[in-house]
């Protein structure tokens, strides 16, 4: 079992990887709803909620995530 602090550390590490590798020009070029959903995903890594923000199915949003070059870190 890991401590909550350890999980927080792993979350921050994953967030940094997503921020660093994301194609920010692509993200900023998206319509407002998709842009907000992609930024939410970069910060949280939560595909389900991000897809709801984008008003897309999870698979559709996952394709958008790949186009935005945001890795799924897990």
């Amino acid at each position, binding site marked *: *079992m890991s401590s909550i602090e350890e*999980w927080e550390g792993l*979350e921050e590490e994953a967030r940094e990887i997503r921020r660093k590798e994301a194609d920010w020009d692509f993200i900023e070029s998206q319509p407002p709803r998709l842009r907000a959903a992609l930024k939410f995903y970069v910060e949280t890594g*939560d595909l*389900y909620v991000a*897809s709801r923000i984008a008003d897309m199915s999870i*698979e559709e949003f996952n394709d958008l*995530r790949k186009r935005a070059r945001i890795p799924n870190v*897990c």
Partner: protein
Amino acid sequence: MSAEAFAIADTCFLIDWASWRQRDLLFKLFKTVFVPESVIKEIRSERTVEWIASSLASGSLSLFTETPDILSFARDLVERSKLFPIRGIDLPEAICLAAGRMRNYTVITENRGALMAADILEELSGVRVWRSLELITEGLRRELIRGDPLKVLEEYERDTGHRFPRRDLEVVLRELRGED
């Protein structure tokens, strides 16, 4: 039936996994993999729909219909997970975790919140939660797939846009190469 016979997969896992060229490894590891009904609604691409449909037809995948007791436990898990200062879980992955606990299924997910919940919540102690990393490692260990472990795992990352945490990857590679 042993716990290893059955697994339940969430949407985030299946959508990633479906893009991998060796995706049928999943069916060599489990007798059947349950997919909650909600997963089916999230699949849109022809390629993934065809894979899911043919796997359901062959029995490699099976539909999992949520019962009231599973749903009630899943809602409890969602609420409990929100009490901690880390990412919580939402209902789709909570349903898989509840089934893992109540039906003794292996839970397959790529959702970090689900991993954390299984690690921290007492109600989920003993539930086995695997990511693609553990699945591929098991496939290599049992020689259900072959090849240099690093190349296989890099291929998965390329196909799916996934990123394995480097530390976890190093641990797995050391073990598979017999360096532990």
